[in-house]
């Protein structure tokens, strides 16, 4: 079976199980909304401050969403040792990671799209004129977040203290994504908007490097 087909089959299974229970999406959306609202009440920023600090707060909220959502990506495969069932299948081991990365990317993007209008209202930022550029930044940043988080979720799931381990592993590695995404978003929300090619290229390179590394070591990551 080809890598793409196996990835598609696993992605479809991930979407089906999540949309059936809606446990993960529901809790993550509520959690991130609370974070965004609390940030807004705590800092009570002016319009100028919002443009300067808002993107950082927004990406921090996405990072929290990621560490919450990605935690269970491999943990739920442990309930009935279904990861073993996936590893028994005659498929490229990377397809297991790739299917989960794709699902996590879609879940995170959905959370971000739900969150954006709330962010725009609370921080008094007009996002509609720059929506296309903003979505481009969100997509590149979220690929990095989903790819890195899925890989570390696979690592953490096999360790003791796994709930604590994932944020400890993930947050330092994601610092470059957080910085690049925040800087790119600041540029997009600036008046006049300016899409920084430097930060976009940085994000794209991070995504490519991390996906390639995951493809190369995927088999070993999933081993006991």
């Amino acid at each position: 079976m080809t890598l793409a087909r196996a990835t598609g089959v696993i992605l479809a299974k991930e979407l089906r199980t999540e949309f059936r229970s809606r446990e993960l999406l529901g809790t993550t959306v509520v959690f991130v909304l609370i974070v965004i609202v609390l940030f807004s009440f705590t800092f009570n920023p002016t319009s100028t401050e919002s443009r300067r600090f808002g993107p950082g707060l927004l990406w921090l909220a996405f990072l929290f969403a990621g560490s919450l959502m990605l935690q269970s990506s491999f943990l739920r495969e442990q309930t009935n040792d279904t990861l073993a069932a996936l590893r028994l299948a005659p498929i490229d081991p990377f397809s297991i990671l790739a299917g989960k990365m794709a699902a996590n990317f879609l879940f995170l993007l959905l959370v971000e799209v739900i969150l954006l209008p709330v962010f725009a209202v609370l921080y008094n930022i007009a996002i509609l004129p720059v929506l296309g550029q903003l979505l481009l930044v969100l997509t590149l940043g979220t690929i990095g977040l989903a790819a890195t988080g899925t890989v570390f979720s696979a690592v953490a799931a096999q360790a003791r203290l796994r709930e604590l381990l994932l944020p400890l592993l993930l947050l330092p590695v994601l610092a470059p994504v957080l910085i690049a995404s925040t800087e790119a978003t600041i540029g997009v929300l600036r008046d006049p908007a300016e899409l920084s090619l430097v930060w976009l290229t940085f994000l794209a390179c991070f995504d490519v490097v991390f996906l390639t590394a995951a493809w190369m070591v995927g088999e070993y990551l999933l081993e006991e």
Partner: protein
Amino acid sequence: MPASAGLKLQFSEVEKRYGMRLALRGINITIAAGECVALVGHNGSGKTTLLKIAAQLTRPSRGKIAFYSGENLVSLEEVKSQVGMVGHHTLLYEELTAEENLIFFAKLFGLADPAQKARQALEPVGLASRASDLVRTFSRGMRQRLSIARALLASPGLLLLDEAGTGLDPEGQQWLAASIRRLRDSGCTILMSTHGRNETQTAVTRAIRLEAGKITHDSGAAGDPKKILVMAAVRENGEEGEA
């Protein structure tokens, strides 16, 4: 009938270490195609580890395992499509229905017409009428039956059973024993771990006893496995009695 002919397995000097603990040491066995081998021994004797190595779920720390179809060496990648396994856990998704589980695994194994294959697999395990029910609503015995259906889905040439009778009622045990006999007779190689005396042992053609990761008794392909099976059951019962 297995689509693929039974596989021959050869363990050479296989050793498995978990940290400081040696789970398997110096395992040298050859299991011919079509044999039905029972692994017996106490908890922690290395039965599950041996099965996991055969399933390629874990690598040996030393030594190697080779698979043959007839006299031809089969690559480890090719072997995967010919292995079915029933583990300690059910290896099933609770949020999916019985049919969805089987369709999912049929797709991963690249089987033609996964939906039809899933329906066919549910019939013999008596779950056709529950095909659309979520696995989380199933009893332990029903989950185990579905787990066995999943393992047999791709008509394996090598079937690995890790205490597959667990959770099955006497009728289920008889059904499993009959299924194992049928698979054995059709040429499928079967390697199973088992405890005490149970129905599934009636299908066994060879028994191997493990103690602390080492093979202590092997009835051999031509020998009588009953002696080892009875001895293992007596020891287990004795220890349970003492406890």
